[in-house]
């Protein structure tokens, strides 16, 4: 009951509101949970941390869950994480079992969400207890490890690495802060922008530009295709019964665990979680040949994995200050607004906020289930919301969000615009937003930890010899890089084989 002490009715209302808005964003193809959180950030400017978190967690859970609706009904994943839901969900819909497929997905999503919340509750404090013992050396190595993972699991190793390092470089623009032991001098800034960039680019406008404007520009470049004409029928076919989950507890648990684990790894999107869980399901299924033809177990694996991601991605965020995915990277913006530092000390020093996170995460999952399960007939209409009404609202919210991020600075609006364009053209040349933003968020900390370690010990050897934890981290870094090179090598081999085949 201690957990519920700090919960207020307003929080519960905001969670529910967040879930509903999140479902709308998730259910519209092209819009994501990350975009939902980025666009709605300005709503939190006037709220305190606890109520802000309630809204943002609702958006996160709703945004991840809403993706299953178009995946099943029109074979287009609403969010990248529901890509594998199309494999079996849409064939089920074609057989006239759309409502059954949706409800299976919703229940699996609830299981995945609650499973990952449970893991978060027990694992985050334990990880924070270990991390509290870290010196600057280990903290730098953790960030280095996070960046190698981001690069190694990117679509292309080299593109992910360039994006991450570019994010770090951009984060260093501005003053080397005296508060962090710096010398207070400005760097990487052209003379005429020194006044505006004295503190570098502000995080929130960068986030809103990259995850809000970029998406709209990509849609605009395609001429803002009209919303899909619905050709689906909900009812009919085999009705949904909970007995469909009989014998699938293993599937639910395994896929949720995979989702939670992938969430733990920094910068990895939900698509990796659901693809891994789906492939694993295919390997272990009694009828692997049936997967892809409209089997409920395919929907169960995919949906429990992508909701498992939510709690998993919050673990490194809360205990290390490292976001697990792009949505939690945006959430860092909300903490920054409140002047709070995430990291090993967070849970101990802000127990109330930690309890709020837990209660609201569980509540968000329950609300998501209630809204989607019982009002599915209305939720499906969301995919037909006209884009000509929605996109202008989103752009207006983005502009006001960027402007208000630092209490009214027009340069922040230009930052939003600049990074929106950067995201659009960056994607064209293969840069990736998630590694970039995580590099941007962690860059300044990486600098402080790296420089202070060298200033204290006077040698680079300290990074290898400081402690057994440092050695352990190097092993993890080596494994992550080894995996990355192995994957890159396999891709080259595959490419060569395909060319040979032609």
């Amino acid at each position, binding site marked *: 009951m201690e957990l519920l002490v700090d919960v207020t009715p307003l929080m519960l209302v905001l969670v529910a509101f967040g879930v509903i808005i999140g479902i709308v964003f998730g259910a519209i193809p092209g819009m994501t949970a990350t975009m939902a959180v980025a666009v709605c950030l300005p709503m939190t400017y006037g709220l305190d941390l606890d109520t802000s978190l309630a809204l943002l967690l609702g958006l996160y859970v709703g945004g991840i869950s809403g993706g299953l609706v178009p995946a099943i009904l029109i074979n287009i994943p609403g969010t990248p994480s529901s890509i594998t839901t199309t494999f079996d969900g849409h064939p089920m819909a074609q057989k006239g079992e759309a409502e059954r497929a949706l409800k299976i997905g919703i229940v699996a999503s609830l299981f995945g969400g609650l499973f990952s919340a449970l893991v978060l509750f027990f694992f985050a404090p334990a990880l924070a207890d270990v991390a509290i013992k870290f010196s600057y050396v280990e903290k730098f190595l953790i960030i280095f490890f996070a960046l190698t993972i981001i690069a190694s699991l990117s679509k292309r190793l080299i593109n992910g690495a360039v994006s991450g390092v570019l994010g770090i*470089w951009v984060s*260093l623009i501005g003053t080397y802060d005296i508060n962090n032991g710096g010398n207070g001098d400005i760097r990487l800034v052209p003379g005429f922008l020194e006044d505006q960039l004295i503190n570098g680019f502000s995080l929130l406008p960068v986030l809103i530009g990259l995850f809000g404007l970029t998406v709209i520009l990509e849609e605009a470049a395609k001429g803002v295709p009209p919303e899909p004409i619905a050709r689906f029928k909900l009812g009919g076919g085999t009705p949904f019964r909970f007995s469909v989950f009989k014998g699938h507890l293993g599937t639910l648990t395994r896929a949720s665990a995979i989702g939670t684990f992938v969430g733990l790894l920094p910068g990895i999107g939900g698509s990796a979680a659901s693809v891994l869980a789906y492939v694993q399901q295919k390997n272990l299924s009694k009828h692997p040949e049936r997967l892809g033809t409209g089997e409920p177990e395919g929907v169960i694996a995919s949906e429990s994995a992508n909701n498992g991601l939510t709690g998993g991605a919050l673990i490194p965020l809360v205990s290390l200050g490292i976001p697990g995915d792009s949505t939690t990277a945006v959430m860092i913006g909300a903490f920054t607004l409140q002047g709070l530092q995430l990291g090993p000390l967070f849970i101990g020093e802000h127990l109330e906020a930690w309890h709020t996170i837990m209660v609201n995460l569980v509540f968000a999952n329950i609300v998501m289930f209630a809204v989607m399960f019982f009002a599915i007939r209305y939720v499906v209409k969301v995919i037909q919301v006209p884009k000509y009404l929605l996109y202008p609202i989103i752009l207006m919210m983005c502009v006001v969000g960027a402007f208000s991020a630092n209490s009214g600075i027009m340069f922040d609006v230009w930052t939003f615009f600049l990074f929106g364009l950067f995201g659009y053209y960056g994607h064209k040349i293969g840069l990736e937003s998630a590694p970039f933003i995580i590099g941007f968020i962690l860059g300044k900390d990486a600098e402080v930890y790296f420089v202070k370690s060298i200033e204290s010990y006077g040698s680079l050897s300290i990074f290898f010899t400081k402690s057994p934890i440092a050695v352990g981290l190097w092993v993890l870094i080596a494994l992550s890089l080894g995996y990355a090179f192995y994957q890159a090598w396999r891709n080259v081999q595959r490419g060569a084989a395909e060319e040979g085949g032609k």
Partner: protein
Amino acid sequence: MEFLRVTIDFDQSHLFFPRIVGWVLVVLLCLALVARRRELVRAAAGLRGSLGAAIESLDLKTFGGTIGLLIAYIVVMDRLSDVWPNTGLSFLVCSMVFMASLSLLYLHDRTRRKVALAIVCAVLAPFVVWYALAKLFFLTLP
């Protein structure tokens, strides 16, 4: 381990890490160019074709219109905020015009009903946001 010794001059410490990151970035960019050399050669050979295809697939009117309207929105809102300082009225008025224009740009078949809906939305949405942020949360708006 003498070769691993490093001394950082405090006066120049603000450039120490950015220089390392800058060099890592240059090396990675070179590696990216080498790794993708085949694609680049192919792209260069078919530059005219691929460029033409890219431009053809780009909806210039909608894309350019979005960017143009957004720039105009930001610039005009900034100017008008000097005329009506600290009221948020510049935001309110400019957002209504911006949203209506953008909706009309994105509308494929401009039936009377859809245009009316777009205009109602363009009036209502900025008003709700303006009221919530400026009047309830007391946030500064342009």
